């Protein structure tokens, strides 16, 4: 029952419909790729680009003879963020981590942030990279600790620090007195995050370089501080 006479006409109608449809697609494509490009890139950047501040390492404090009295050390810990609260997920991820790091601790279902491994060395961080990509619950977080020579009087003299907005801030003693000089000026950089809020490789762009603080050399020796003399 094929209508042979009108077949070409009907085919032409269909081809014409396809051509119109294709042109509409092309117009939309051109609109997003060229005309409205800037607007949509801006909207996208809102969800993906983060401006981060990074702090230079807090400088050291030396005694009169150049002996280091206080310094900073950076450590890396592996955290388990309990996003799903699923015991099955905890079990699977823990088993995988434990196969490489036998000393890893098993996350509890109740805790939201659980430290599975502390003080990772660079080799361990590289070994964990694949797991972190596969399991968004895992995160390596840096931790900075301020160390002071282990004499009680020196500790009191040098003073204490606390972390305020991811930066060490002196709250007593020499640490407080020379706080600004020790900290320096923070830097800024832009990064791109993926949908799981992980940092996309090679997406970082520096805006301002951080200026490290200055090391402080005290006018007292370690022995004098231990005796309780004041500067």
């Amino acid at each position, binding site marked *: *029952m*094929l*209508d*042979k006479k*009108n*077949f*070409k006409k*009907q*085919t032409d*109608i*269909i*081809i014409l419909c*396809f051509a119109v*449809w*294709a042109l*509409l*697609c*092309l117009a*939309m*494509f*051109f609109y*997003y*790729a*060229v005309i*409205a*490009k*800037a*607007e*949509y*890139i801006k*909207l*996208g950047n809102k969800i*993906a680009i983060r401006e981060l501040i990074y702090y230079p390492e807090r400088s050291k404090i030396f005694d009169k003879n150049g002996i280091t009295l206080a310094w900073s050390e950076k450590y890396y810990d592996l955290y388990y963020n309990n996003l799903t609260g699923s015991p099955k997920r905890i079990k699977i991820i823990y088993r995988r981590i434990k196969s490489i790091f036998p000393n890893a601790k098993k996350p509890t279902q109740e805790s939201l942030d659980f430290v599975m491994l502390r003080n990772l060395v660079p080799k361990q961080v590289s070994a964990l990279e*694949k797991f972190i*990509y*596969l399991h968004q619950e895992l995160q390596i977080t840096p931790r900075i600790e301020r160390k002071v020579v282990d004499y009680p009087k020196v500790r009191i003299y040098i003073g204490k620090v606390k972390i305020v907005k991811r930066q060490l801030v002196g709250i007593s003693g020499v640490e407080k007195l020379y706080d600004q000089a020790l900290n320096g000026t923070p830097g800024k950089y832009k990064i*791109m*995050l*993926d*949908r799981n809020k992980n940092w*996309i*490789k090679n*997406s970082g762009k520096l805006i301002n370089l951080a200026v490290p603080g200055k090391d402080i050399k005290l006018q007292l020796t370690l022995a004098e501080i231990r005796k309780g003399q004041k500067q």
Partner: protein
Amino acid sequence: MKQEQLNRKVFNTTVLVQSLLFLLCIWGCLAIYNSNTLGASPLYFVGRQLLWLVMGMMIMFLAQRIPFSFYAENAMTGGSIAYISLLAVLLWGTEINGMRGWFTFGWTSASIQPSEFAKPFFILMLCQIVVKGKNNFKTFLRLSLTALLWLIPILLQPDAGTALVYLLTFVIVCVLAGIPWKYLASIPALLTPIAIWVLYANPYIIKRFSGFWNPSSDPLQSGWHIRQFQFTIARGGWFGAKMGNATWSNSYLPLAHSDSVFATISESLGFVGTLPILILFGVIIFVLYRLTLKLKSPNQKLFIIAMLSLITVQALIHISVNVALLPTTGLTLPLLSYGGSSLLSTLLTFGIILSALNFHPPEEEHNFYI
């Protein structure tokens, strides 16, 4: 046109089409690689796709060597097997992305999507009905009933995107068959209760529509996918972010290597770099269309145009979704998207089209179905 001239033209077109198809598939592999450059195993998907491509090309060469009369005579048998597989997948299929549409083979991690392989057989059956039909009303009724029977298992998966492709192809076959417009006008009325049932059973479709109309109202849920298409294409601009730098496709675009492959290509190659792909698609369709009209057998003409229409419809829906012209549907871009079933079935379809071109009957013998 003399028979000899026609044969030479068919041969030249066959070689041209095969080369262009291979080129498009390789382009697809590059796009798939590009969508996973930041992943843990960037070569995983592209490696598998290359394997499918080798198999697909073999299937196409084999399919085009089988006389078209074989497909025509066995249309009902092939169609029945394909239909049974559509029913079987509902019972024993595996659910992926909320859709029970695949048979998986545990030991190989490979999966087959019957609704992809059923496409050429669906068209063969519709063409067979048209060819054997004696009056318009009965033919239209048979075509409608067949289309409805095929749509039900696909909608039950639920795979609204593929169902839309089947539906539009059915309409196109009706138009090509010369079914009067008064009958065609009844299709929307016939579809209304089905559409209501589909929307009632799958509320996610309504959400996709609302996300499509106003992506800003729910940018993290229903509007997410549409928004990501817009952001990805915008990042491509005129000339793209270059191969291997499709950051947005890698990080935000859902299913960047399959259902969103057009947007991935746009980000990598930009507007200027993507146009040749569209032109290549157009050239394949146009060359085959022009040659088809020179054939004498109306049956083969009908079959080839219907097959080409199915591929074009699927490609246009995929591109429309990717350029935010239509709400999100899970449809692949034929030849370019990742997926063994999609690639193999498309190349099989082209194999049958080339067979229909190569095995055209002598001028006087027009209808060999009956």
